[in-house]
């Protein structure tokens, strides 16, 4: 099932879809909450392929289509004259699948400008009679292809320059179709001009399949076209997505704001990364301008998160956001809060995060939320979001954009089934493996670097040089442990360090830090288990932990209490606290990280 869904997501697995379409179909048909829809396809080419693939995308979007297909090439006749069987079918919408090969009134070589205008009127009026007839007889929605450019041009570049050129004619036709759609509320233009250009005309059309099977679009083209069609149907039925939920760090700016501070994040001119993040922000801003709701769901302190929007190069403004959740709770919980605040359904959301583990959590816990698998390269985020066509609207409703509360309708919230009953179950599914050991020559530099840049999950915020770390690593009284964590999405690298000195049977911890990337993975429990084992080995009877408050490390205020330490003392202004853990009778705490390699 997961593989089916992935194949049907951008970038589509065309080979898999084509070969497994029957089994994908039976799998998708198991969904019990499908909406029936009758679609008549009037084709200027063979339409069985496009119906068979469009069915898959429609099923994925919650529709169960039934198709009526005109006889090959009889799109005009079926629409205008011989439509008894079409009427009997009672379609909810009609798709007129015509392409470049169906143009019948193209100007001849050296035709005068007037003659070309006549050709244009003649071609457009053929389609007007199709749309009129469908509108009068059936009164339903019509989805009409515009035209792809010709693939070969005997005139070469002049084909576009001269008014009698075929390319020139196609552009004019497409503008006429666009004008018609603006006038006719029931007409939706499917922009295959864009689609074929995006794929490349050579990939869009396959001569042999046209000559042999009368397929006007190649197999690859068919998959993309079917997807576009399904999005238009969703849009026409108001089922497009309405809200974009954004992560912050390394999603809309480069770096971790809690560690790097607002001056240190990458955004804006000056670096390739900064420009890429700006460009993605611009796309999100444009979506917002056309009516898409923006929200934020980030693992950060709220104040720190908000600060990022005051960066001089931030295109997104804090006021563009309808809901912000920046805290340390699981993101799936925060997203439920967002839908509650905005009073929209989970199936209206698209969640964008550079971290694959966060994406997996949200898509498994909240299946109706769309979670594009957009990798971690910011330069491709826009592409993924754009190609999926989540926000495809068939008309722009200005009221929608002006509405102050953004989305007032009280839609029934779709019931969803979580794939995992508990957060623990999710953690187990990550198949986490840790490597915990004493800091050594191969990683002292990384460890020193971490002590200097980690601000949030850092109990003491002590900064160390490489020489300091070496002294600790090789000092007899010291225990200095590092931890690496990998999961089914890959290796997170060396992400945590704990260090302390044993003195009079007590281990005093003067360094405990962790990268926020692996927050809530219970890696700190595994670290404590390892630390306790080491400390006992060196004769310690108890461990003392220290928390020194800074403006950035409020998130670890309760670190030791969560680990089962007892509070020994707390400063009156609550800035610093001291904690104690007795080692007799200690029971290991980690349960979800399965394999732990020690040295």
């Amino acid at each position, binding site marked *: 099932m997961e593989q089916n869904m992935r194949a049907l997501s951008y970038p589509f697995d065309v*080979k898999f879809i*084509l*070969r*497994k*379409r*029957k*089994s994908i179909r*039976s799998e998708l048909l198991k969904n019990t909450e499908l909406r029936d829809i009758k679609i008549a396809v009037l084709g200027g080419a063979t339409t*069985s*392929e496009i119906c*068979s693939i469009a069915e898959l995308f429609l099923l994925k979007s919650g529709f169960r289509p039934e198709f009526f297909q005109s006889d090959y090439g009889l799109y005009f006749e079926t629409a205008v004259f011989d439509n008894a069987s079409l009427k009997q079918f009672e379609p909810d919408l009609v798709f007129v699948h015509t392409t470049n090969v169906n143009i019948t009134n193209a100007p001849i070589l050296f035709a005068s400008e007037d003659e070309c205008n006549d050709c244009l009127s003649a071609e457009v009026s053929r389609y007007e009679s199709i749309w009129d007839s469908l509108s009068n007889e059936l009164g339903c929605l019509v989805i009409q292809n515009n035209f792809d450019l010709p693939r070969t041009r005997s005139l070469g570049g002049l084909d576009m320059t001269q008014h009698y050129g075929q390319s020139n004619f196609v552009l004019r036709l497409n503008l006429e179709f666009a004008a018609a759609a603006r006038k006719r509320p029931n007409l939706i233009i499917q922009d295959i001009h864009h689609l074929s250009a995006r794929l490349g005309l050579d990939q869009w059309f396959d001569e*042999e*399949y046209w*000559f*042999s*099977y009368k*397929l006007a679009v190649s*197999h690859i083209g068919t998959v993309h076209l079917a997807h576009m069609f399904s999005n238009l149907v969703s849009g026409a039925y108001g089922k497009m997505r309405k809200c974009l939920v954004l992560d912050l760090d390394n999603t809309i700016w480069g770096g971790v704001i809690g560690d790097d501070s607002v001056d240190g994040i990458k955004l804006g001119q000056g670096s390739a990364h900064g420009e890429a993040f700006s460009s993605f922000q611009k796309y999100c801003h444009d979506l917002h301008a056309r009516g898409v709701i923006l929200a934020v769901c980030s693992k950060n302190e709220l104040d720190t998160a908000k600060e990022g929007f005051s960066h001089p190069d931030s295109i997104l403004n804090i006021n563009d956001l309808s809901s912000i959740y920046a805290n340390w709770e699981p993101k799936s919980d925060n997203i439920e809060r967002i839908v509650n605040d905005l009073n929209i359904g989970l199936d209206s959301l698209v969640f964008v995060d550079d971290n694959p583990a966060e994406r997996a959590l949200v898509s498994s816990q909240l299946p109706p939320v769309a979670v594009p698998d957009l990798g971690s390269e910011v330069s491709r985020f826009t592409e993924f979001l754009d190609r999926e066509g989540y926000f495809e609207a068939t008309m722009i409703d200005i009221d929608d954009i002006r509405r102050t509360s953004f989305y007032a309708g009280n839609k029934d919230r779709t019931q969803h089934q979580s794939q995992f009953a508990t957060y623990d179950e999710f953690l187990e599914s990550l198949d986490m493996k840790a490597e915990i050991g004493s800091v050594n020559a191969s990683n002292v530099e990384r460890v020193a670097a971490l002590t200097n840049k980690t601000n949030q999950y850092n109990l003491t915020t002590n900064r160390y040089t490489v020489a300091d770390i070496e002294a600790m690593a090789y000092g007899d009284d010291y225990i200095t442990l590092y931890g690496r964590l990998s999961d089914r999405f890959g290796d997170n690298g060396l992400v945590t360090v704990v260090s302390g000195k044993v003195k009079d049977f007590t281990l005093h911890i003067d360094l405990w830090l962790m990268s926020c990337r692996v927050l809530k993975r219970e890696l700190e429990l595994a670290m404590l288990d390892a630390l306790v084992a080491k400390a006992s080995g060196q004769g310690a009877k108890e461990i003392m932990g220290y928390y020194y408050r800074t403006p950035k490390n409020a998130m670890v205020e309760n670190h030791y209490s969560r680990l089962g330490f007892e509070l020994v003392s707390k400063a009156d202004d609550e800035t610093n606290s001291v904690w104690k853990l007795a080692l007799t009778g200690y029971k290991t705490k980690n349960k979800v990280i399965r394999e732990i390699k020690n040295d």
Partner: protein
Amino acid sequence: MTEILAQLQPIFQDIFDQGDLEISRGSSAETVDGWDSLAHINLVSAIEQEFSIRFALGELEAMKDVGEMIDLMELKIGKSD
């Protein structure tokens, strides 16, 4: 020759969505359930992709069964090596 037939089995099984389908050299549109024109196009494109070959115009129209298809494929695969 038998090797190509073995490689064709899973393709036929996927296209016709019949896990237990077993074709032989004698199989044809008449003997395999669901082998209509749509399935035919799917089959051809799947075979072309799997074996990285292209059938020329009209080649498949003249073929009467899977055996002839395999013979033709053998020639094409041999050439591309």
